[in-house]
């Protein structure tokens, strides 16, 4: 029953909170309370204790338990940030729905059902993209509408590709119909395209760039930091459920690996040429996704462990970066503040968060990204020098992009305070509007970003906190034991 409670409690609370959407502080506080209770419930669930409901097995493995705690914590952090910064009218309700769907994906052990839940999550996320704050006297921008439409279409297409693949797996028999294109390759191609869209691999990345560029930062956290790791877990579940796909798929894995490495390289190159701060960050995220996918497709112990560690890093880094961006843009609520070049002095904590998250994305030690990248490089070295070289170039380009971002936005020349013009004839000091003063960074947000950075540092310095569980889960996979 606890499994069902984990899924349906946030859903029921989301509908209750929807009724209170005009009272944002109460709605957010209720949502935080819901997630704290959810965290308590998650602690009560016994791992590896399956139950069967309506023909679907529900099970929480130790690996999925780590992700469950991670997703709930990210949800709580994002909702606390929503208490401090402006957010959409339905943010708490849609946030809870997205989290409930993520939990459902974690505990359901049926690939087709989880793919359906992934699409449902995409549809919920559309509501979060176009959400405006309560009483906002502004119109929703065209770019936001375009971002929402693009996201909707691409997620539905990804869902259709995955559905088709899962239906085919149901009738696929290894070694059938010699001489015809192997269904395993066709199924793997469908799966790869579907997950590439969901994980925003270049050239399927446009939804993520638009999302980071035009949607609210807090909504973007929930749409990137939860569904992308969840998608990778669904892919892992698929390979676990149908290991014959890999053996019958021939060289398909090589194609996936090469494609993912090129994707990481292209995204890092695009990050170098991006014109805005948000675009640059979006491309860095895409590049990191490419490296995670490469690591996953290597299907080795090091590779899969690196991919799992990588998605944990991605979730934490994206949360840190986007909350920092929200703080940088506070209280203007728009992209005017990043026009400055001295953000490290104007917004020191937010800029540190941005830099820390960026370093995690490009895989620097002692952040968790470093461990993930080392494992990925280890897997790439086994696969061949060519792939290792492409990955290293991608990592160097991503590092250069972050250096460029730092120089361009964080540590550039300080903006001089404008010298007040002399008074006009008949004008007095009282007639003039008071000088604009940038309010200080909210203390709550400082603590939030500080906590996220400390968490990333702890996981990065002591990877043994998570790595043994991840490696044990990876070792138990049928694909790995057979290979």
């Amino acid at each position, binding site marked *: 029953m606890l499994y069902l409670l984990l899924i349906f409690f946030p859903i029921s609370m989301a509908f209750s909170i929807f009724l209170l959407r005009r009272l944002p502080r109460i709605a957010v506080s209720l949502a935080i309370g819901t997630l704290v209770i959810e965290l308590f419930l998650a602690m009560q669930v016994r791992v590896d204790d399956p139950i069967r409901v*309506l*023909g*679907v097995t529900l099970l929480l493995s130790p690996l999925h338990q780590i992700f469950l705690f991670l997703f709930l914590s990210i949800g709580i952090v994002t909702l606390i940030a929503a208490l401090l910064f402006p957010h959409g009218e339905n943010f708490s309700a849609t946030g809870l729905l997205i989290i409930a769907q993520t939990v459902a994906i974690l505990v359901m052990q*049926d690939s*087709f*059902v989880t793919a*359906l*839940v992934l*699409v*449902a999550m995409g*549809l*919920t996320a*559309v*509501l979060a993209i*176009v959400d405006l704050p309560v*009483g*906002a*006297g*502004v*119109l*929703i921008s*065209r770019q936001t*509408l*375009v971002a*929402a*439409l693009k996201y*909707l*279409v691409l997620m*539905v*297409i990804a*869902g*259709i590709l995955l*559905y*088709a693949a899962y*239906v*085919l797996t*149901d*009738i696929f028999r290894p070694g059938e119909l010699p001489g015809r294109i192997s269904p395993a390759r066709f199924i793997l191609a469908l799966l790869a395209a579907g997950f590439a869209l969901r994980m925003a691999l270049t050239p399927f990345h446009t939804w993520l760039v638009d999302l980071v560029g035009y949607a609210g930062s807090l909504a973007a956290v929930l749409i990137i930091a939860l569904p992308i790791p969840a998608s990778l877990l669904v892919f892992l579940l698929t390979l676990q459920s149908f290991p014959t796909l890999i053996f019958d798929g021939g060289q398909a894995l090589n194609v996936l690996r090469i494609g993912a490495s090129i994707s990481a390289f292209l995204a890092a190159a695009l990050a170098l040429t991006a014109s805005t701060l948000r675009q640059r960050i979006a491309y860095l995220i895409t590049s990191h996704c490419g490296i995670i996918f490469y690591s996953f497709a290597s299907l080795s112990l090091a590779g899969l462990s690196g991919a799992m560690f990588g998605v944990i890093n991605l979730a934490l880094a994206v949360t840190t970066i986007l909350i920092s961006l929200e703080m940088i843009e506070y209280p203007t609520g728009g992209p005017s503040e990043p026009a400055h070049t001295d953000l490290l002095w104007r917004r020191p904590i937010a800029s540190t968060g941005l830099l820390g998250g960026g370093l995690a994305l490009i895989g620097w030690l002692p952040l968790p990204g470093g461990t993930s990248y080392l494992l990925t490089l280890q897997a790439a070295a086994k696969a061949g020098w060519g792939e290792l070289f492409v990955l290293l170039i991608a990592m160097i380009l991503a590092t250069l992009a972050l250096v460029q971002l730092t120089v361009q936005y964080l540590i550039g020349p300080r903006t001089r305070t404008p010298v007040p013009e002399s008074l006009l004839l008949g004008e007095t000091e009282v007639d003039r509007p008071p000088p604009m003063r940038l309010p200080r960074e909210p203390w709550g947000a400082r603590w939030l970003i500080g906590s996220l950075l400390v968490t990333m540092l702890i996981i990065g310095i002591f990877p043994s906190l998570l790595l043994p569980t991840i490696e044990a889960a990876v070792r138990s996979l049928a694909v790995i034991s057979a290979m």
Partner: protein
Amino acid sequence: MSIDLWIILIAISAGGILLLRDWRSTVGLLMLNYIALAFLLNEQPFVPADIAQFNFSSLALIKIIIGICTALILGVTALTFSRDYGLEGLDEFGQAELRRALRAAVRQRSAETSRLNDYILPFWSGIAGLVASLMLPIIYPIAPSPGLDFAWYWLVLSGVLAMATAGDVLKIGLGMLLCMSGIDLLYSAVVSSPTASGLKIMPLLLLSVVQILLALAVAYLAGLVYGRLKTLAISELYRG
């Protein structure tokens, strides 16, 4: 391939959605598509007629209910496009922007005439999709019968082509719904075949819920786009 009335209806309704531009026709055709799909499933030997009084299967009934729900959601949204929501809190810049959008939309509508050129791309892409749907069941059969294979290939292809050639938000949504119903048919036909694992309640339930949610999301987005631009044209979204 045996010719079946319901397959012909599916082909005509999906083709009509691909070709036509007026929402009154396309939303009606969507409902017809779902009804034809339901009757097609009902006459398959692998779908048991569990509502014995009417010799009808509950699976087919579910499809009809989904069809009615999606068509109603889109139809009611389209009917209420002229209503303005939440304008009382809008500042004067927003109101000026809305007036500008309204003028642009009125200009666009008055300049818009029904030209034959607008139908050339959907027509020829539809022909290409139809040929592909007739060939694919021979080259790559998946479903238990060629008729079912044709139906799901045609639904998915016409949906993709409708999305690709769409000029407005509602048409994109209709394309997505066509694709989903194609996959729905594939799932029902393939998984219930004797060599497969058999239909399960959870995937069927979620497939139905996702289709209704998709219709809701499209309706909401279409409402927002119309409220903002006073038109559903995608070209207006990318202007300015």
